[in-house]
């Protein structure tokens, strides 16, 4: 099950780390620009903000945490967490938004 011996101890090279850091700073500024321009974006604003946050999170996970070079099992384990959160949100939201309101007719 363990991968081949040599890439068990993977070292993320300096240039990759530097590029990731710069990308993260850039994306943070991009988020701010999206926030200031919320008058044009309107309802799209929060969605854009979250997309950028998602990209930043992916960068941190892949390069800083080394998930890109890690075993399939560890990636599956980490992804499992997000799946169950989605499940909790999906069915709780399904409940709250399919409730039939009862009016007080007194």
């Amino acid at each position: 099950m363990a991968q081949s011996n040599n890439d068990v101890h993977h070292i993320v090279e300096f240039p990759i780390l530097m590029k990731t850091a710069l990308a993260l700073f850039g994306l943070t500024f991009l988020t701010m620009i999206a926030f200031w321009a919320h008058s044009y974006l309107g309802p799209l604003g929060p969605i854009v903000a979250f997309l950028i946050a998602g990209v930043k999170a992916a960068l941190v996970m892949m390069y800083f945490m080394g998930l890109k070079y890690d075993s399939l099992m560890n990636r599956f384990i980490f992804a499992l967490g997000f799946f169950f959160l989605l499940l909790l949100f999906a069915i709780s939201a399904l409940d709250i938004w399919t409730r039939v309101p009862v009016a007080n007719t007194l």
Partner: protein
Amino acid sequence: MMWMNLARAQSLMPAEGTQIATQVNNLYVFLLVASLIASAIIIGGMIFFVWKYRRKTANDKTPYMSHNTTLEFLWSFIPLVIFLGVFAWGWYIYHNMRAMPKDALEIHIVGKQWAWETQYKSGVKASNLIVAPINTDVKLIMTSTDVIHSFFVPSFRIKQDVVPGRYTALWFRANKLGEYHIFCTEFCGTQHSGMIGTLRVVSQQEYEAWLEEESKVGLLPLAQRGEKIFQVKACASCHSTADAAVKVGPPLFKAFGKTHEMANGEKVAMDENYIRESIMSPNAKVVKGFPQNVMPAFQGQLSETELSALVEYIKGLQ
């Protein structure tokens, strides 16, 4: 054997008072019989195998049976089909329970710590009592003023949590006269087991007569109106009026005019203002030995006349 079994099964459940209750009974009887059959197969099989293949010698040889795909498929697929069938039948009846009838007789229920307060459209109020006409759709619109309660009428097989901060609804159409229990089934504190009411199903005429008689409460002398309000607001569940027994709050029997020691040691005579203040904001003066913030505040729930009626009633408890 089957029919005796059905009769016995139905005798366990309280006599049903609505058409839906009969449907629930039928599904319950089917489930009971199916479970008996399934248990007979598995437990009977177990007992038979255990007896037939009991150990004979110290080193018996047993066959190496690892699996049997067809058999295993059957006893996975057949239970699945039965379970889904039961799910669909349950869904059908559940939908009937939750689909509210149009233009039903609406009664308001307010669940509060440790009593059910009912209110009719005509303004008639009652405590722990619902009077409903027979063969009419009745819709209960329920809310709670403090914690979650749950309105349960076993004979009608209906139950619905009463959630503070929003309205929940229940409906029934009684098809038998009589008195049925109302229970609270969501834990709500000390007197959770005391929140028992009665649901009386009467004929249409009797229902209108009761409504008429109850609405004349406005003409009663002040003290009697006070007693009615004392009942409706379920003050009796915490304060005794016939004797000096301590229920949850201090007794009100022969209490008027006497001085009582407060929690902070101050001596206060019980006069009209003290009663009025203790009703509107109970925590202002709490009698020694009684806990803080147990009694709910009635600020904004009682009109001026209702307050003076209550004061008149308590003064009369000599």
